[in-house]
């Protein structure tokens, strides 16, 4: 990687320093080289798009590193080779403030330039860059190609302060209401290119799963096409990368890549609505708490009785179950119909289950995982304390000082029924 040489200019102390720095860098690199420890690493790709980008980036980086060594080598060589030492201190003292401390009349040959040389180092880099740009343009075209068929899975990605919504169109038709609406975890089948349509409900965000593809901004009022494809299964971390206000750092997401069979199973579990609980069912008290408080912003399909068509295609805000005006600037909060089937919450900054859920197969977390009760209850109790937001300005989840601990326990019990 370029840049970490303490590349400098000149003089003997440089060599000693350079050696020390190199040793330190070598040790440090050895300590941090493991890719598993860098969930956002752009250089360990897990999909064809990220690979295409790196196949372009590495050769260019290689050229840059060669030029780097040539130029820095020349700088150091010239500075050492042509340096002139100062006069001894005694001589300098004899001429204080004099216009020269180096020896007065020594001037090298006065060269004003060399047209041929200068033309050469204008034209050669131009050709070099022209060659690079050909490959860059080819990649650019390839990355913009959508190979997925019209009726393949298509996902609308909506950024909001400070979480992501994913609307699944299983038949690829984004003009109809989505089949699945989920948050923060984009579940896709392996080896299948999934076209995305990225937009935002408030400010500009940027959707980025670095190990799968580059980023694409989510701009309110615009829909940007993008694709995502993985050729290994697993969970791949993402991060909002366009500054979006207070909790920009806390706006994360995962791409969860499953085998096609697992993915089909996941879809079957997600398309069904939640059943309203009857009195006496476990979690019923929690459902009552939910409807009285959370349902002002959150949707549970089949339970909160709201027509979502206008909300989902962006023509109107979600007004909440109990009010006529939107409780949020963005107009929507995460859909909680199957919240217990996810592994993270609150913009993927908290694990829903203890012990890092990736040790358990994704489809089994709700059954086998141990609930991360501490974070979940703290979040319900006072969300702004756990994740900066502007609840007073209707941006982000508000605190619920009115809820008793009993209410919160009941609510958690209810949420865990939403698998």
């Amino acid at each position: 990687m370029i840049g970490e040489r303490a590349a400098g200019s000149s003089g003997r102390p440089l060599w000693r320093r350079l050696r020390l720095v190199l040793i330190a860098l070598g040790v440090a690199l050895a300590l941090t080289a493991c890719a598993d420890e860098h969930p956002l690493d752009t250089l360990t790709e897990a999909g064809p798009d990220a690979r295409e980008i790196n196949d372009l980036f590495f050769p260019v980086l290689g050229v840059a590193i060669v030029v780097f060594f040539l130029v820095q080598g020349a700088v150091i060589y010239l500075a050492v080779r042509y340096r002139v030492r100062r006069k001894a201190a005694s001589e300098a003292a004899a001429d204080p403030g004099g216009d020269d401390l180096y020896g007065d009349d020594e001037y090298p040959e006065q060269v004003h330039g060399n047209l041929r040389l200068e033309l050469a180092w204008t034209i050669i880099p131009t050709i070099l860059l022209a060659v690079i740009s050909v490959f860059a343009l080819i990649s650019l075209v390839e990355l913009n190609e959508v190979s997925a068929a019209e009726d393949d899975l298509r996902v609308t990605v909506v950024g909001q302060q400070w979480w992501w919504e994913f609307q699944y169109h299983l038949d690829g038709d984004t003009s109809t209401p989505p089949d699945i609406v989920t948050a923060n975890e984009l579940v896709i089948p392996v080896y299948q290119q999934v076209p995305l349509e990225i937009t935002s409900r408030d400010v500009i965000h940027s959707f980025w799963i670095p190990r799968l593809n580059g980023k694409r901004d989510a701009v309110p009022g615009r829909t940007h096409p993008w694709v995502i494809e993985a050729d290994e299964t697993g969970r791949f971390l993402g991060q909002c990368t366009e500054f979006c206000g207070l909790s920009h750092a806390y706006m994360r997401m995962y791409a969860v890549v499953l085998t096609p069979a697992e993915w089909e199973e996941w879809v079957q579990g997600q398309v069904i609505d939640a059943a309203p609980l009857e009195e006496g069912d476990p979690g019923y008290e929690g459902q009552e708490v939910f409807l009285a408080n959370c349902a002002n912003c959150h949707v549970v399909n089949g339970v909160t009785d709201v027509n979502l068509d206008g909300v989902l295609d962006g023509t109107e805000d979600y007004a909440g179950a109990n009010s006529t005006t939107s409780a949020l600037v963005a107009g929507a909060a995460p859909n909680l119909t199957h919240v217990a089937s996810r592994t993270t919450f609150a913009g993927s900054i908290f694990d829903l289950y203890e012990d890092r859920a990736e040790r358990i197969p994704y489809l089994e977390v709700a059954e086998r995982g141990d609930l991360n009760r501490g974070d979940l209850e703290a979040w319900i109790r006072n969300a702004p304390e756990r994740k900066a937001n502007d609840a007073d300005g209707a941006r982000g989840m508000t605190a619920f000082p009115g809820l008793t601990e009993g209410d919160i326990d009941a609510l958690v019990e209810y949420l865990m029924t939403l698998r």
Partner: protein
Amino acid sequence: MTTTSEPPLQLTAGEQLVRPSTSLGVFSRPRGDTGWQSWLFTVDHKRIGIMYGAAALLFLVIGGIEALLIRLQLAVPGGNVLSEDAYNQVFTMHGVTMVFLVIMPMAAAFANYLLPLQIGARDVAFPRLNAFSLWAFLAGGIFLNTSWFLGGAPDGGWFGYAPNSGLVYSPSNGMDFYALGLQIAGIASLVSAINLITTVLNMRAPGMTLFRMPVLTWMLLVVQFLLLFAIPVITVALFLLSFDRLFDANFFNVAAGADPLLWQHLFWIFGHPEVYILILPAFGIMSEVIPVFSRKPIFGYPFMVFSGIAIGFMGWGVWAHHMFTSGMGPVSVAAFSLSTMFIAVPTGVKILNWLATMWGGRLRLNTAMLYSIGAVAMFTIGGLSGVTHAIAPADTQQTDTYYIVAHFHYVIFGGSLMGMLSGIYFWWPKMFGHKLDEKLGKIGFWVLLIGFNLTFGPMHILGLQGMSRRIHSYAADSGFNLWNMFATVGSFVIAVGVLLLFLNIGVSRRRARGAPPVGPDPWDARGLEWMTASPTPVHNFDRDITVTRQDEFWHRKWRIGTDGKVTRIARATDVAHDGSATDVHLPSPSYWPVVVALGLPLVAYGLIYNLWITGLGALLILGGLYGWVFEPPDDPEAHEHDDHHDADPSDDSGNGASGGGTSTNGEDGPDSDDGARQLAGAGAAAGPSAQAAEEQP
């Protein structure tokens, strides 16, 4: 065009109060050349330049403290030095401060101080406007920073992307301060650009043709043109933002049909030329320093000049490379990717020409030279990483990560700031009559260089490992811990390096007391600015200088024989003016630039808090302009001791190849407010247009 053909009205001089007289058009002008008033009301380009520099160094400390806060916050995962809100304010103000209040005014300091000297002029074309630029810039900078104490600084990033910068998403007054403060600073830059362009085009010494001008003068000229065209664009954007926030306009309101990309285009059409506004002055400085300390002329002067001009033109065609991921469509992305790649060519030419200048030279590795060489080396790194994200597909991975943070710090810190530090060490003796301490300077350089690489080198790795920009915190399991700690340690090493500069200034200043003066030409340099005493006398040069070739001053000291050997023909002290002329007509100080500049932040405060204050500010501006217009061109009292120009108009040692000036035309003239014109007005190169260089408020 002259302001009046009448001789100035007689008036009572010596009154120090800023008090508009009731009698029409009769105001006194401030006098005296010592004390705070002599600085506050000065129109001398040198004092203005020094004040620009001092302000830039002050803001460097403020912006540096902000940088240290950022690094402290990010030193360990989950840092809690700053709240999310405070962090957003600090990183926004760090960017705004460093770009608008440090690098730009530092470039303005060099431009103001050196540009008239390098072209052999007495002052800039419009001395009072020059003073106004300084005070307006300072007013904007102070206005911006008062937001810290008035409910919160701007928190939308220096780039202020809509709609996040709108009232809904940024409800504090911070972004109002941002929009209005930058408009004020923009006025300063715009006025200054017009002033300096006029100066270069009209006020060059006899024989100083465009292609005899030093490379620094050229680069500063290019920068002024960039400012002239770029500042209006950002002003439009900021104006729209102000109207959205203050008067509920809908320019960036998506619900009302706006496209937020409008802001991005406007911002970056300004923002990318701005990058060259930041770097080209440093390129100019390096092109002065490297030849002097290599003891060779600049290698390929025409290539250096034309590559600078080429950068100035191409700089307008690359703005959207800041927007590769914002959804412009593949054709735009391809076009801007190409143009961005090819702007590397003229930049590369410059780097190789500096190296070729060093080739075969006799290098004197002074602090100034070290900083210039360091800037070449560091800028190269920034340029190379720039090529890797000119490749648009790669940029989709790199943009908005720390890879970009590393890139532009190598360009702006490693290139611009190091180049300007080189300039500080180089021209310090010219400005203050004594050198800065070399030992402290060199230690400072190495500390700064190591700290710089320790801080920003690891950020390349962090970026490629996926660390986003502008995040106030990162998770412990993201794998960013080690290099962030490196960067934080490095940032404090940088702080030590900067402190060493201030220590050096203090130590050298104390040592210089009672020591013999440094002489006009301590480095055996090449430019005209060295052809007069150090520190520069208030009237710059005792006589007109007739220029016959590039590096005129050097050629008066040295002769290149037919065998290529260089022999001394004169000592600098024989050639240089000693500053003893006492009869030079100079523009008089003025109260009004300060008054008008003071009105600007009042207008801005009023827009935020109470329109009555705006009215007050507007009255101050109008009153100030009124006083400005009717101010007598000269202070008649001053003539007794500082009378008009009557020196030998043509310089004795020049051979007058391009028909040196014969007479100056400003004698006793009522239109001689801009005394500088007298010096250059008669030159063949300057031509008759110089007569038109009249200040028109």
